[in-house]
């Protein structure tokens, strides 16, 4: 039986690659956490990896702005915007098409793209975790252009992804990786701030399997307390929905004002 065998989430800020040695007393723990995450993913022997991320007005702009969009391409080019990684990511077009059909059957009217260049929200984690050789299905999620999909809708979409994968013939081994957050402010006067207390509360709730409490949060409160970048926790919540388990396992967290963000690294679907 096909199944989702690995799920997890982490941040995607370009500074992870552009300035990796900043504050080594804290970034060192994060690099070790990413190494553990990369080893877990490699050990899961994935046939396909669904990467749940957003876009920063590189691929999707006001001419066409989907809420959810699945990539169906043979391969994907990285934009390489602002010094972030370029390069080519291998696609999983048949798998992507099956996921699209399955989601539509389950009431999720997801858009599709046969040419979907990827910005740093996809490319940084793929490069950092050494995943460029894994067949990828990118799932774009609107995290920065209101109105945003509700947190609960994102969770339900993740549950549907897991269900769709289980219906694939054969014994496909699928991973789901969410990218974004945690607290940070993009293009706003508070750029550079980190709300460590908020980050740790979010990660603790996820880790303890108390997702329902997070699903009650309003975007206004998230924006006020943790910045517009924290609205990207949608990718984590969708991934949690796909995990099939009630909890997450924190691999690492550090406030990184040197990178203008709080960084989290979490595997999901397992109790600590």
């Amino acid at each position, binding site marked *: 039986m096909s199944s989702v065998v690995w799920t997890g989430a982490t941040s995607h800020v370009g500074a992870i690659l552009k300035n990796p040695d900043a504050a080594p007393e804290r970034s060192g723990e994060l690099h070790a956490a990413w190494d553990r995450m990369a080893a877990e993913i490699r050990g899961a022997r994935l046939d396909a990896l669904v990467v749940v991320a957003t876009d*920063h*007005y*590189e691929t999707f*702009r*006001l*001419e066409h702005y989907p809420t959810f969009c699945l990539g169906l391409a043979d391969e994907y080019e990285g934009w390489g*915007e*602002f010094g972030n990684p370029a390069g080519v990511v291998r696609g999983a077009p048949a798998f992507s098409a099956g996921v699209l059909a399955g989601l539509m059957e389950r009431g999720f009217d997801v858009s599709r793209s046969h040419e979907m260049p990827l910005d740093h929200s996809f490319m940084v984690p793929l490069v950092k975790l050494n995943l460029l050789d894994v067949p990828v299905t990118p799932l774009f999620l609107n995290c*920065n*252009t209101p109105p945003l999909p509700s947190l609960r809708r994102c969770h339900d979409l993740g549950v549907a992804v897991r269900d769709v994968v289980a219906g694939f013939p054969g014994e496909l081994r699928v991973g789901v990786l969410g990218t974004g957050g945690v607290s940070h402010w*993009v*293009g*706003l*006067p508070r*750029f*550079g701030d980190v709300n460590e207390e908020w980050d740790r509360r979010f990660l603790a709730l996820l880790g303890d399997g108390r997702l329902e409490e997070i699903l009650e949060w309003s975007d206004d409160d998230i924006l006020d307390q943790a910045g*517009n970048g924290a609205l990207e926790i949608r990718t984590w919540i969708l991934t949690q929905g796909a995990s099939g388990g009630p909890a997450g396992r924190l691999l690492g967290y550090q406030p990184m004002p040197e990178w*203008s963000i709080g960084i989290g690294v979490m595997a999901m679907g397992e109790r600590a």
Partner: protein
Amino acid sequence: MNHLMLTKLAWALEHEDGLLDAYRHDPGAVLDRFKLSARHRQAVLDHDAETLLADGLNPVVLRNLLVMLGVPHAELYQRDR
């Protein structure tokens, strides 16, 4: 319409070959290609992040636009820059 045009401008400056150099040489001529209000045209020329944000431009677009024009992300709202 203005937010659409500001978004188009930000993307074009980043991705359209030669446009950033053209802007540096003659910003007015480049801005003529985009249907901006007089207020937003001046805000772009002045690197005026406060006005663009107050008028509702998406902060991600605002960041992309002004960073392309040479303003560091950390200095977008520094009035003495």
